[in-house]
Structures are given as C-alpha cells and as structure tokens.
C-alpha cells in the first residue's frame, strides 16, 4: 500500500510540472504583457510612471526575457518564496487576494456537498427500495431535469422567482454593510442569512446526479444473494438495507471525494457569477477579462494542482477499498 502511494506521488510530480507549464502558456496567450497594460492604465489616470519601480517589476518577473526565464521566475517565486505575483488590477499581491476567496468558496461548496448528500442518499435509497413506485418516478423525473439544467440557469430562475414572488434580492453573500467589514460574529450571521440560496442552487445540480448513482448502485446490490440470506435470517428490512447494501452502494461517493477537491475551489463559477458571490470563479473571470495574468494564472495553476492531487486522493481511496487495484497496479 505504501509503495503504491509513493509510486503515485512520484508520478504526480511530472504531471504537476506539465500542468504548470500549460497554465503558464495559457496565461501568456493574450497579446501584450501586463506591464504595458499597467503603464497604460497609470498614464490614463494621469499618474506618473515611476521608471524605477517598473524596472524592478520587470526584473522580478523576467519580462522581456525569453519565455522559459519568465516561467522559471514565476515558478521559483511560488515554490521558494510563496510569491504568486502581483495583481495589476487590484494593486495587491495575488496571495492576499486569493486566500480569503478560496476560504469562502470552500465553505460554500462543502456545505453544498453535505446538503446534497443528506438529501440524495435517503432519496436514492427510497427510490431503489420502492422501485417503480409513484414517488420513484417523480424523483426520477425531477433528478433528470435537475441533472440536465446547468446550475447557472437554475440560479437565474430562482433569482427571478425570489424577486417577483418573495420580493427578495438574492445576489451576494453579504449585506452591503458587511461587505468590506472585517470578520466578526455579526458578519458570520449575516453570511449565514445569505448563503442558503447559493447552497440550494449548487446542491440541486449535484443532488440530481447523486440520486441516480445511489439508486442504480443500490438496485444492483439489492439483487445479490447476501441480501437474500440476511432477509432469510429474519433481519428487519430497514436495518438490512441500511447496514449492508447501502454501504456498498455508497462507494462511488467516497471514491469521487478527491475529484470534488478542485470543484471545491472552482466552486460553480457560473452560479457564482449570476449571484455575484465573492468566490474564486468571478474573480478569475474578471482577471481573465482584464488580462490580469498573474491572478488568472494562479487560479488556473491552483485549480489544476487541486485536480491532480484530488485524483491522487481518490486513487488512494479506491486502492484502499479495493485491493485488486493496488496489487495489479
């Protein structure tokens, strides 16, 4: 097992390297570099450009030098000094900007995932044990529609309903008063008041898929002989279902936990955009639009690294659950 994990980690290193190169190339694609844009912006608002400061920045990021030098400076900054670069739009280090957002995004996504599991597992189990009942059909239809409708469209519709029916404006995670305030108990309470709508919206899309997985897996399990044996031995139906087949049927949930890692911080970019949440997605979008490339690149790199690590985690989990994989691998 340890050998398997070590092998996987070793294999991860070249993957991470290639992923970082791709991220770097992608952020280099837009024409022009950020210093020229930055200088143009400064002179636009009538600010004088401090030639020395410009040169210092140029030196720091290796601008104007060959692309591999730039890449080296970027990567070594991140790895050795934890310097993710400078956001030219916000005039702040990228590091300061992203961590708070990532925290919020992860909180939001975690709550949404938990909510969706709490709904999906019982519903999926009910659907499987009461196959072809009216409720099963109803659930199937709902989950089909839920799975086919992208989150941001659900968000639009819910926003419209909330506005016309409840007279409620649902955008944002905070009331305007608390938006820029430092963290406090009041701000937390304010956030809890707002967070349920995005949670519901994100949960709807993932719940639909989870219901179908649970139902399909459990249906496979329920026909197996061990269930029949347990039933023949006189185990109560409720205990029988929940204790054995459900546990097996839930395996895919745990093996995809790792996969959710990246989506935890990319957190439904489109939904966040519609509801103007202070999460990572809209910030990355803006950074891309304004060619704030260190900010955008950092997001892309972080997200990709998360996916790679997430894949590793789910592989390890799978190997732990299923010995055939680690021995054959």
């Amino acid at each position, binding site marked *: 097992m340890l050998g398997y994990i070590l092998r996987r980690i070793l294999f991860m290193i070249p*993957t991470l390297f*290639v*992923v970082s190169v*791709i*991220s770097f190339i*992608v*952020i280099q*694609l*837009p*024409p022009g570099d950020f210093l020229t844009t930055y200088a143009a912006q400064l002179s636009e608002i009538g600010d004088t450009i401090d030639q020395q400061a410009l040169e210092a920045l140029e030196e720091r990021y290796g601008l104007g030098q060959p692309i591999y030098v730039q890449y080296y400076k970027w990567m070594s900054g991140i790895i050795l000094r934890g310097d993710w670069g400078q956001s030219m739009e916000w005039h702040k280090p990228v590091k300061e900007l992203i961590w708070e957002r990532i925290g919020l995004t992860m909180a939001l996504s975690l709550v949404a995932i938990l909510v969706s599991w709490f709904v999906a597992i019982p519903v999926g189990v009910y659907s499987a044990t009461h196959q072809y009942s009216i409720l099963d059909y109803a659930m199937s239809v709902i989950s*089909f*529609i839920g799975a*086919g*409708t*992208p989150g*941001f*469209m659900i968000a*639009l*519709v819910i*926003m*419209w309903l909330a*506005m*016309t029916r409840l007279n409620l*404006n649902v*955008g944002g995670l905070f009331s305007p008063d608390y938006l820029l305030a430092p963290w406090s108990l009041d701000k937390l309470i304010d956030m809890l008041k707002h967070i349920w709508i995005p949670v519901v919206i994100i949960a709807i899309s993932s719940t639909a898929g989870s219901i179908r997985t649970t139902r399909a897996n459990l249906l496979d399990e329920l026909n197996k002989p061990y269930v029949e044996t347990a039933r023949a031995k006189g185990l109560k139906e409720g205990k029988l279902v929940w204790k054995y087949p459900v546990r097996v049927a839930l395996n895919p949930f745990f093996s995809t936990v790792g996969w959710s890692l*990246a*989506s935890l911080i*990319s957190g439904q*970019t*489109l939904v966040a*955009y*519609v509801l103007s949440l202070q999460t990572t997605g809209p910030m*990355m*979008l803006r950074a*891309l*639009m304004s*060619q704030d490339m260190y900010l*955008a690149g950092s*997001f*892309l790199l972080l*997200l*990709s690294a*998360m*996916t*790679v690590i997430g*894949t590793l985690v789910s592989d390890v989990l799978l190997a732990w659950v299923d010995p055939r994989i680690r021995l054959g691998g």
Partner: protein
Amino acid sequence: MADLERASNAPEEIESDVAIPGEEEKIYVAPYWKLMWWRFRKHKMALLSVGILAVYYFVGIFCEFVAPYNPEQYFVKYKLAPPSKIRTRDVEGKSFQPFVYAVIRERDPETRRNIYTEDTEARYPVQFFVHGTEYEMWGLFKMDVHLFGLPVPQEEQGIFLLGADRLGRDMFSRLCYGARISLSIGMVGVFLSLTLGVVLGGVSGYYGGKVDTIIQRIIEFIRSIPSIPLWMALSAALPSDWPILRLYFGITVILSLIGWTWMARVVRGRFLALREEDFVMAARLAGSSQIRIILRHMVPSFLSYIIASLTLAIPNMILAETGLSFIGLGLRAPAISWGVLLQEANNVRSLALAPWVLTPVLFVVTAVLAFNFVGDGLRDAADPYAR
C-alpha cells in the same frame, strides 16, 4: 378478456407457423440496424425527444423562414413588450380565425415604464406564409415569405410570440437564429472531437505499447486541468475583434480540445475489447489486411456505441457554449446564440420587468434533455442482442 384476446389472435398464429416467419423468427434473421430500431422504438421518451430535436433543427436550419422578423430590427415602441396574446374570440365572444389586437404603448407617468394595453377596436389576423420583411435564405437568394406573421409591416403592429427584449427586438425571431448557432456548435464541436478522438484513440487502442502510453499520458494531462477554467482561459485569449464566423470556429475548437480526450477513451476501450474477439482473430487468420480488419470488421461493431456517446456529448458542448457566451467569453453581441440571449437575463431589471427574457433557458434545457434521452435510447439499442 384474456380469452377473447387469445381467440382473436389464434388464426394469425396458426398461419404464421405455417407460412411466413412470425415475430419470434423475425428477430433471428433481422439485420443489425433493424434490431437497433426495434429496441430504440421501445424507449418512448427517446422517440419523443427525436421529434423535439427534429423540430429544433428544422427551426435552426430554416430560421430565416420560421422567424417572423429580422432579429436585429428594433423598435423603441416595443421595448420589453409582453408576448402577444393570440385570440380566436373577440370581446363579444364571436369567434374568428386567430388574430391579435393592436397593442398601444403608454407610459406610467411615475415609474416611466412602458405599459402595453390592447386596443380591442383594431384586429390583425395571424396568417401562415405571409409576405414580410425581406431576407436572404442561407445568404443565397432573396425571399420574403415567413412561416407565420401579420399581414402588416412590423412598424404598424408586430406579433411577438415570446415578447420583445430591452431594445424592442422580437425574442422568438432571435431564438430561432440562436438555435442555428447553438445547435450547430454542438454538432461541429462533437464532429471535431470525434475525428481527433477516433484517430488518436484508435491508434492508441490498436497498436498499444509505447504509443498507447504516450497518448494516454497526454489525455491525462489535458484532463487534469479543470475544464471550465481552462475553457475560460482559452476563450479569453481569442482576440475580441474577430469576426463572428472565426470566433464561432475558435470556440468550437476550444470546446473540442477537451472533448476529444473523452472520445478517445471510449474508442480505445472498444478497440481493446474488440481486438481480442474471435471474429477479429478469424479475419486476421483469413488474411485480411489491417485496414480491412479495422474498417470492415471493427468499426461497424462499435459504430453504434460511438453514435450513442456522440449524442451524449452534444448537450455538453451546447451547455459549454451557452455558459461561455453567457459570461461574455464565448460568442459576442452581433452573433446570436442562446447563451448570448441569456446575457439579457443576467440584468436584474430586465428579469423583473420582462421574465420572458428567460425563455432561452427553456429551449436549452429541453434540447439538452432531449439529447440525453436519445443518447440513452441509442445506448440501450446499440447492443440489441443483450436482453
């Protein structure tokens, strides 16, 4: 009841036993595609979905003809005008052929919003195949016949099946034109990823060994970057001054850049499974060339799987395009796609005053669901020998 049925069926059964092969035997002699069709036919939702998609694609292909108006033509007097009510009875309860009342615009003196009321004095009949605004069919020849409309010019009175947008443009016409781009982008994108996926996946699966390892690693690298951020980053790199057509292909290429990896996995998996099959071995022993084995024996036996996977891939493409255009990274304003139309809905004011700007959602969702059902049906039908 059961007895009656048996009685009525009896003569046929006897006859079929003697002469023509009955239902039972037909199954043994039917060709593959016929079996597929019989199987597919059983999936009622899939059948219905094929119908829906046929209508959508008809609208997309003949959008100039189906749309009653020019999608760019705007009128201040129809700003956020509600959907026209098509009536068959007037105020006195007399029935006519379908008509709409003239709509009068007034302004609320306080909120300065437009209020639309119907003038029951003036009636305009709704007719099929009316002569209206001139258009160029597929950019080839001039026509002015529309599927339906009012016999009067739009300036005098317009018919808005789904209301009008912020600038007073007909939503229904815009949706028709949007269907052309949104529905075709899925097709073109899937076709591109299919070509890449089949070639690379086929090579990977057929030759195996080092080639396989390299291609699989490449696929893993591409897939280890989350798709939405990567799409966003790549589309942000497309120059903003590109003409619509080039942008359209740019977006499709970007979408298929990730799509092909998935396709390649499917093809490779099938290739690996089929390589070991007896009939491939038989063909090899009979001295068939590799090309012949691939094209004549292997491709037909996984073609149906590919088609099913393709059908399931199209909605993802459509959704991706819609999402990208919606956040402003995909197609842009002069182009009309369902995603571009939805940008309108992200405006809180428009949404509150004119909920019909949300109608693209309905079309996207039904199209996506329909594709999913058809894909499901095809996947089941792809293996008609399974019970």
